[in-house]
């Protein structure tokens, strides 16, 4: 019954979107992070989405989506001259993380929209399955 596998597909989508929400939360929470060297400063985390292919039935629909990796941004941290800062290095510089709050907020909205549409799919499928069970009554 193909309708049952939709629960797995939508569930995979919901779990992938919640991982994305987690990275957004982590990035936003660390948005003010500063450090005395570029290696120690927080770098934004980004999830990489990948389709789960059905290897046994290559001609069929795929089996949803998964987070294949969480990569850290390779953008160089901002260098700010602030000799009064207790974290400043000998030359008076502090390094600030490159988390972009606007980017993270749009990412969060996109994730929550996608999560909602996955929930919608699940609800519709549930109704269809229940109606199928009641067939002929």
């Amino acid at each position, binding site marked *: 019954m193909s309708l049952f596998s939709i629960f797995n597909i939508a569930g995979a989508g919901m779990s992938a979107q919640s991982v994305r929400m987690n990275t957004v939360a982590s990035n936003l929470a660390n948005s003010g992070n500063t450090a005395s060297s570029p290696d120690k400063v927080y770098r934004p985390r980004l999830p990489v989405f*990948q389709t789960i292919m059905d290897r046994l039935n290559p001609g069929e*629909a795929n089996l949803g989506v998964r987070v294949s990796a969480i990569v850290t941004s390779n953008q160089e941290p901002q260098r700010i001259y602030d000799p009064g800062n207790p974290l400043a290095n000998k030359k008076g510089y502090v390094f600030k993380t490159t988390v972009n709050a606007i980017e993270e907020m749009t990412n969060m909205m996109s*994730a929550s929209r996608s999560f909602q549409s996955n929930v919608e799919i699940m609800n519709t*499928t549930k109704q*269809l399955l229940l109606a199928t069970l009641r*067939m002929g009554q």
Partner: protein
Amino acid sequence: MFIDFDKVLGVHQQALNVLGKRSRILASNIVNADTPNYKARDIDFRSTLRKVADSQGSDNGTVRLEASAQGHFSEVSTEMTADENLLYRVPLQPSLDGNTVDSQTEIAMYTENAIRYQASLRFLSGKFKSIVSAFRGE
């Protein structure tokens, strides 16, 4: 007296099967709306249903396997083979990450597909009710 269920139920039992498969394909499109390089897929409902109905119909000249020894399968598998039917959707607008899913279109199609499924289900329900009332003879 015996009832040929294939004739009574008509095309709706195959339609339910194909609609179920299609809703799965559309669900995977929606779920992969944020996956880079994912290409949205769909089936041509009319041709797929015709193919499935032809392969399942008993008296329209389809080829059956001959069972010459014990243990041979006597019937051609009636499972839908989606290989040649699964097509790629033509994107309405390009996107930077190579993804061709348009969430709004996919959700609209998914909803439409669900309504068609319910319609077929209701037709089937009606057929079963007719059979039951014929038995009762009231």
